[in-house]
C-alpha cells in the first residue's frame, strides 16, 4: 500500500515537473565577452518565474565565450533538462554554433548577439532563431546619418582585428559608400593592445573629418585617448558596443564628446514622454538598478530582458496549443514568437515577420554623446 502511495505521489510530482516551462540559458559570463555576459546573466535572474500561471525554470550555463562550450551547453540543456526554449548566446560565433543543435531538436533559440547573420538570410534553419539585439546595420545607418548631417566628407575607421571590427567595417563601408562618404583610412588593433600610436598616426596623416572606432567595451577607449593625446580635432564616433559604465570609468575625460548610437534604454530617463520605448525601457532600468545598485545597468543586459519580454508575450499563446515539454508546445512557441506585433521592449518595439526575426525599426536606436561622464541624448 505504502509503495503504491509513494508511486502515486512520485507520479503526481513528475507530471507537475513536466508542466513547468524550462528555459535554457547559455551566456558568456567569462572569457573575452564577459563584460556583456555578466549583466545578461544578472538580468535572467530578474525575469518572472511564473508566466500565465505556469512555473518557469531558468537553467543558466556559462559558455566562456567559446563556441564549443556553447554547443555543449545547448546539447545538455535540450538532452537532459528538456528545455522548451533557449536563450543565448552573447556573441555571434556562439549563437551560430548553437543554431544547428536548436534546429535539430526543433527548439526556438533567442540570441542576444549583434551581427545580422544570426537571423539573415532567412532559411529553414533560421526559422527557429530569433534575435533581440539590434543588427549592426541599424546602428551603422544612425552613425552615417549623423555624419552626413554634420557635413562630414572623409572618415577613417579603426576597429578590432576580429569579427566585431570586420563586421562593423563591412556594414559601415557599405552604407557610407551609398551616402558618398569617403573612407580614407582603415586600421585594426587588438582588444588587449597596450598602444595604438602607429595606427592613430596613420589615420591623422590622412586628415579625416571624422573617425569611427569599431570596438566594444573598455578596449575602445584607447584609440580615442590616443587621438586626443596626438591633438586630433575632428569628430569621434564609437559603436554601441561601448555603452556600459566601465567604458566611462576607464575613458574618463578622454572620451568626452564622442558620438554613438545606443538602444533607447541607455538614456531611457532622458527620452521625451511620447517616446514609445520610454516606459518599457525605464521599467528594466529600475528593476536592474534596484537589484544591483544605481548606475549598474548596461545595454547588454537589456537584450536578455527583451528575450524575457518576447517569452512573456509568446508563452500564453503557445500554452493554448500544447503542454510544455512537448514538441507541439515548442512549435507553437516558435509561431507565437514569429507573430509578435508592436511589443514594446527595453531596446525598441518588436514587429516580427517570417522574414525578419529581429523585428526592430528606427525606434530601436538613438544617438547619444558623452558629456561630463554621462550619456546624453542628442536631439
Amino acid at each position, binding site marked *: 500500500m505504502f509503495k503504491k502511495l509513494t508511486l502515486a505521489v512520485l507520479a503526481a510530482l513528475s507530471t507537475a515537473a513536466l508542466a513547468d516551462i524550462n528555459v535554457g540559458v547559455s551566456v558568456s559570463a567569462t572569457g573575452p565577452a564577459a563584460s556583456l555576459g555578466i549583466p545578461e546573466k544578472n538580468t535572467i535572474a530578474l525575469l518572472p518565474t511564473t508566466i500565465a500561471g505556469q512555473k518557469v525554470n531558468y537553467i543558466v550555463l556559462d559558455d566562456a565565450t567559446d563556441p564549443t562550450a556553447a554547443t555543449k551547453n545547448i546539447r545538455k540543456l535540450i538532452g537532459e533538462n528538456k528545455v522548451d526554449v533557449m536563450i543565448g548566446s552573447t556573441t555571434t560565433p556562439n549563437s551560430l554554433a548553437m543554431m544547428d543543435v536548436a534546429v535539430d531538436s526543433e527548439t526556438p533559440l533567442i540570441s542576444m548577439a549583434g551581427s545580422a547573420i544570426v537571423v539573415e538570410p532567412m532559411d529553414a534553419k533560421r526559422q527557429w532563431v530569433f534575435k533581440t539585439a539590434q543588427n549592426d546595420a541599424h546602428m551603422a545607418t544612425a552613425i552615417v546619418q549623423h555624419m552626413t548631417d554634420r557635413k562630414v566628407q572623409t572618415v577613417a575607421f579603426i576597429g578590432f582585428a576580429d569579427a566585431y571590427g570586420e563586421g562593423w567595417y563591412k556594414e559601415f563601408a557599405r552604407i557610407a559608400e551609398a551616402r558618398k562618404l569617403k573612407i580614407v583610412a582603415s586600421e585594426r*588593433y587588438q582588444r588587449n593592445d597596450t598602444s595604438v600610436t602607429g595606427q592613430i598616426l596613420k589615420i591623422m596623416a590622412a586628415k579625416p573629418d571624422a573617425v569611427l572606432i569599431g570596438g566594444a567595451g573598455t578596449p575602445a577607449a584607447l584609440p580615442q585617448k590616443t587621438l586626443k593625446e596626438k591633438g586630433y580635432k575632428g569628430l569621434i564616433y564609437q559603436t554601441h558596443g561601448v555603452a556600459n559604465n566601465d567604458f566611462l570609468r576607464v575613458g574618463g575625460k578622454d572620451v568626452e564628446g564622442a558620438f554613438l548610437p545606443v538602444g533607447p534604454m541607455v538614456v531611457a530617463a532622458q527620452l521625451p514622454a511620447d517616446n514609445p520605448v520610454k516606459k518599457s525601457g525605464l521599467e528594466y532600468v529600475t528593476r536592474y538598478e534596484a537589484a544591483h545598485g544605481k548606475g549598474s545597468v548596461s545595454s547588454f543586459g537589456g537584450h536578455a530582458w527583451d528575450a524575457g519580454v518576447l517569452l512573456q508575450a509568446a508563452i500564453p499563446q503557445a500554452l493554448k496549443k500544447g503542454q510544455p515539454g512537448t514538441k507541439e508546445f515548442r512549435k507553437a512557441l516558435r509561431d507565437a514568437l514569429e507573430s509578435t506585433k508592436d511589443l514594446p521592449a527595453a531596446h525598441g518595439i518588436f514587429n516580427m515577420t517570417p522574414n525578419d526575426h529581429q523585428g526592430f525599426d528606427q525606434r530601436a536606436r538613438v544617438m547619444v554623446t558623452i558629456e561630463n561622464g554621462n550619456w546624453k541624448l542628442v536631439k
Partner: protein
Amino acid sequence: MDLQILLLLGQDGVTNGAIYALLALALVLVFAVTRVIFIPQGEFVAYGALTLAALQAGKVPGTVWLLLALGTTVALLDGVRLLREGRFRKLPPLLIFNVGIPLLCAGGLFVVPPTQLPLWAQVAVSMLLVVPLGPMIYRVAYQPLASASVLVLLIVSVAVHLALIGLGLLFFGAEGSRTPAFTEISFELAGAPLQGQTILVIVASALLIIGLYFFFERTLYGKALRATAMNRTGARLMGIPPALAGQLCFTLAAAIGAFSGILIAPITTIYYDSGFLIGLKGFVGAIIGGLASYPVAALGAALVGLLESYSSFYASAFKEVIVFTLIIPVLLWRSLTTKHVEEEE
C-alpha cells in the same frame, strides 16, 4: 611618413620595449635558476596594475585573499614538516612571513581607507600585496617538482597561468582599469610631443636593469643565484639551498612583473588577461637571448617593441603576426649556430 611620425613611433616602441625588456630579464632569470618557463610572468603585470587601480578606486583588491590563502597553505605545508623534524625555532619566522604579514596588510586596508594614502604608499601597498605571491606560488606549485623535467615544469606553468587568469577575472572583473598618470609633464622633442609618463617608464626600467646588474655582481644572494643558474648541483654542494634560490628568483620575477604593471597602468588600459600577451612579447625577447643571455634578451625585447610600433603603422591588421613571426628566423639562426645539448633527464 615624415620625421615626426618616425620619432613618435620610435618613442612608442622604446616605451613598450622597455617593459618587454624587464619581463624578458625576469623570464631569463627564472629559467636559468629553476628551468621553469614562467608563463604566468605576465599575470603579475596585470595583478600589479589592477591591484593599484582597485586601491585607488577605494576597493579592497582580491589579491589580499589570494595572498592570505596561499600564505596559509605555505605555512601549513612547511609548518607540518618543521614540526615533524622538531625544528621549532624556525616556526615563528615562517608564520610571520606567510600569515602575519598578509594579515597585517589585510587588516591595514580595512583600518586605513587606501584612497587617503599618497600615491607612493599606494604603489608600495600594491607591491606588498602582489610580490609575496611569487615565492608562495613557487613553494606550492613548483618546489615539490623542482627536479622534474622542463616539460613537466612547463605544464605546471600553464596550469598556474590559467588559475591566475581565472582568479584575476574573479578579483578584478571583466572590464579593464587605468590609473591616473604619475606625472602630467610633457615635453617637445624635435617637434614631437613627449609625455612625462613615457620618460618615467624608460628611466625606471633602465634603473631597475642597472639595479639588477649590481644585485647579481655585488651581493651574496645575487651571486648565489648566478651560481645556481650555472650549476645547480655545484651550487648545492657549496651550501646554496635550491629552494632558497627558487624562492628568491620568483620574488624577483614577481617584483619585476608587478612593477612593470604599475608603470604602464597610466598609459594603457589593463585587463585581467592583458598580462599574457605582454609576457609573451617579453618571452620573444627572452628567446632571442636564448633564455640565457641577459643583455641579448633585453635588446631583443626592445627590438620587439620597435617592430611592434612600426608594424602597427604600416600593417596594423598583421601586427601580432609580424611580431611573433620574428621568432622563426631567430630560432633557425640559433639552431644552426649553436651545438645542440641534450636536455638533462
